């Protein structure tokens, strides 16, 4: 490997990553002017939409071709959701869902 070139690759990655994060602030957040109403509306309605998409994103590799490729993830999500609706305690829900998932995956139970 070439150290100088590797450094350049890392630098370009860092700058490009920052670029994606800074865009909305450059477009709408620099001046003292008010954020456009359509954008502040989006800011309010996007989080639930994005969170739903992130749940899907984090289990994106499941496949319905074989039950071993989706049951663990779906059960993990359902356990997390049910425990959360029951106790409303974030850490308990996450520990329960993750615990069940780990047992299912490691023992290849299903």
């Amino acid at each position, binding site marked *: 490997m070439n150290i100088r070139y590797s450094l350049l690759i890392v630098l370009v990655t860092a700058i490009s990553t920052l670029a994606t994060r800074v865009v*909305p602030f450059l477009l709408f*957040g620099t001046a003292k002017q008010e954020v456009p109403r359509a954008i502040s509306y*989006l800011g309010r309605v*996007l*989080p639930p939409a994005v969170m739903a998409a992130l749940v*899907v994103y984090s289990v*994106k590799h499941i496949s319905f071709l074989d039950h071993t490729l989706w049951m663990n993830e779906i059960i*993990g999500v359902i356990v997390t959701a049910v425990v959360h609706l029951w106790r409303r305690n974030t850490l308990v829900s996450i520990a329960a869902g*993750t615990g069940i998932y780990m047992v299912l995956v490691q023992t290849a139970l299903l």
Partner: protein
Amino acid sequence: MSTLRLWRKAFLRTIPVLMGYSVLGIAFGLLLQQAGYHWLWALGISVFVFAGSMQFVLVGLLSQQAPLTTVAITTLLVNSRHIFYGISFIERFRSMGRRAPYMIFSLTDETYALLCATGDVGSKEERDTLSFRIAVLNQSYWVSGSVIGSVLGSYISFDITGIDFAMTALFTVIFIEQWLSTKRHVPAVIGAACAIGSLLLFGPENFLLPALMVAVTILLAGRSLIGEDA
């Protein structure tokens, strides 16, 4: 609230991220070490890039010594979803002064999710401090994980397969909290439908950006139906 209690609160809220980031960070450090890079590289990349999935892609780009235009385009594509995260925090970060640049830099999926869930914290000052500490703690987990992975990765032998499911569980819990906190469920349903539709259409590697773009379009088009005050 005392400053120590706010640290405690930030720590408790970031525990799920601690579980996920340590494991993923260790995996990243291990990969980078196997690609022939000293742990200082893991440290530098996790400090200055700080983008989970992109860092895994970066290992491949480094091993191939890929052309810089490829590196830039790949990074922009993989991280393009972040464009939609900042939109919810324009006013909040703008008022955070010296802490604002770091808040923008460190807005990962998981930090975004946790910041979306700080609505319950009383005063604005406390919320800002808590948000900043959440961001700092999350990155510190990621950085330590990467370094540990690249120094000790090959010695870790206990079976932690599946612990990164904590990320999925975190998103699920925050989704439910958001669902329960509002009567307007249309945005959540639109987000879920777009994500599932896009995943079926485009497959797992490239579905999130089109999903978010379509969701934003529908949300904007349906603004009068969903309600300005949603």
